[in-house]
């Protein structure tokens, strides 16, 4: 088993819509500066920078590093669509465990509101994109099939949005910090039926950063005492599916969970809270089931019954998730790690999950025609 990576500091900016004059580089530098301040570290103590982004353009990481005075360091740009930030954390964990670096700054960043309109879709070369696929459509089809297969109601699926928005009221970093009603979700403008606007995460700008260390790095930064650790991060990709299995089989999530348990020695019963990639309401439900954390077909009912609320038996998205925090795609995985860090430190104030000791963060990035996804990451962190 690889050594864990220790969290020296985290920082993010509030997700939302920033004017075009607030650049990607500026947003990322602000998040990174916050993470360094949180760690009590300085830029010259950093060995390497890994940046997750999708739409930031060539060498965005290097453009950001220059703003931070980190020019000349090893820098890698990581793209795995919505799992880009989490994949960047995985790369840092591996490098730290190998002893290649001792202190690595990971940044997730995206500036979307000035370049993405009407939703995100796969690369145009993908066969599904050519026939008219947009991400919302995939989840609309998933939701309709889920309701048909499991007798779930539209309202039970909508309850994911109500729950996550209730959580984000206490998250100062969330794009939306106001509660919404079930009626509002059900009455919202349809996007990809049966899903409406409030079933969809928004198009957002944002940045998040995490400063990770191995033991030598902790000593360099003068960090003493226990800090939250990245025990490991699973990564799998979509596999070709045959036509005779359920559309919502979520085999990719099942495999990602297996990877998480294999890499960290943690099991599903150890998970105290989940930061789940709820890019759409239905996605939270089927992915929790795929991970094996909720029985298949029960996720919608669990949500309605409050089992996935902050005080439920499996708290999911205390941050408010992508639906409320916003979804600047490359930044999301790092924002999830920030949230788990605050939860494991016990400093999440109004949204704190009582007794949080072990957390799981799940990201799913992109789609590939004929497969059950693009990439899925399963990040396991422990106090």
């Amino acid at each position, binding site marked *: 088993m690889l050594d864990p990576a220790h969290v020296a500091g985290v920082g993010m900016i509030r997700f939302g819509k920033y004017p075009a004059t607030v650049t990607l580089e500026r947003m990322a530098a602000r998040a990174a500066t916050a993470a360094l301040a949180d760690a009590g570290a300085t830029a010259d103590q950093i060995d390497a920078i890994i940046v997750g982004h999708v739409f930031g353009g060539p060498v965005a990481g290097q453009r950001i590093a220059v703003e931070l005075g980190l020019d000349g360091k090893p820098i890698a740009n990581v793209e795995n669509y919505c799992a880009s930030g989490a994949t960047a954390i995985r790369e840092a964990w591996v490098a730290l465990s190998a002893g290649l670096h001792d202190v690595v700054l990971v940044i997730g960043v995206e500036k979307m509101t000035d370049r*993405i*309109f*009407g*939703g995100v*879709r796969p690369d145009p070369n993908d*066969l*599904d994109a*050519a*026939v*008219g*696929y*947009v991400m*919302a*459509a995939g989840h*609309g*089809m*998933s939701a*309709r*099939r889920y309701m*048909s297969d499991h007798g779930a109601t539209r309202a039970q699926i909508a309850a994911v949005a109500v729950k996550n928005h209730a959580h984000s009221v206490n998250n100062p970093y969330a794009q939306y910090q106001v509660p919404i009603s079930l009626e509002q979700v059900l009455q919202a*403008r*349809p*996007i*990809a*039926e*049966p*899903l409406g606007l409030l079933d969809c995460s928004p198009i957002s700008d944002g940045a998040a950063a995490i400063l990770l260390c191995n033991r030598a790095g902790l000593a360099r930064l003068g960090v003493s005492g226990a800090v939250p650790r990245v025990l490991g991060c699973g990564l799998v990709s979509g596999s*070709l*599916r*045959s*036509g*005779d299995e359920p*559309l919502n089989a979520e085999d990719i999530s099942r495999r990602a969970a297996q990877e998480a348990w294999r890499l960290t020695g943690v099991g599903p019963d150890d998970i105290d809270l989940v930061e789940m990639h709820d890019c759409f309401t239905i996605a939270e439900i089927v992915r929790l089931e795929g991970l094996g954390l909720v029985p298949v077909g029960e996720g919608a009912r669990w949500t309605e019954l409050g089992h996935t609320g902050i005080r439920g038996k499996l708290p999911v998205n205390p941050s408010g998730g992508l639906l409320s925090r916003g979804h600047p795609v490359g930044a999301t995985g790092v924002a999830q790690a920030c949230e788990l860090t605050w939860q494991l430190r016990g400093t999440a104030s109004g949204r704190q999950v009582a007794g949080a000791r072990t957390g799981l963060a799940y990201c799913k990035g992109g789609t590939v*025609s*004929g497969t059950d996804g693009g990439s899925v990451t399963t990040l396991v962190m422990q106090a």
Partner: protein
Amino acid sequence: MTPSVDDVAELEPFREGVFDLDPFGLRGVRCAVGHYTFPVRTFCGTCKSELVEPVPLSGGGVLHTFTVVRQAPPGVSVPYLLGYVDLPEGCRLMARIEPRPGVEPAIGAPVDLVPAIFSDGGSSADRLGFAFAIRNEHPDPKERHDA
């Protein structure tokens, strides 16, 4: 309206090797075990065997699920129906679904392959693609007569 093959014969296919024109049909591969894969690959999508032969796929299938897309990026006109279609060979593929007036789309509805025009709203030339049309299971005798 669903164009006939003759109407669209002058259009370039949107991609090479996805369908045949005469007769109009999707192409796939079949492995020795009998798994079918769409689109054509050099191996079987189910068992990864490289012993595959090209085959025409069925023109009819069943709607596995669907959505009405009401918001899409610029260049894509909305609304439109998008669905997963199960072919009898065991392939599930994504396609546009052409509605039939007076017939509500439903899971399990029979659908038939039809040629379709793929357009990006004019920034490049229209292309020939494919879609599935909801089958008229109870054809109006009058409509049949008119045809």
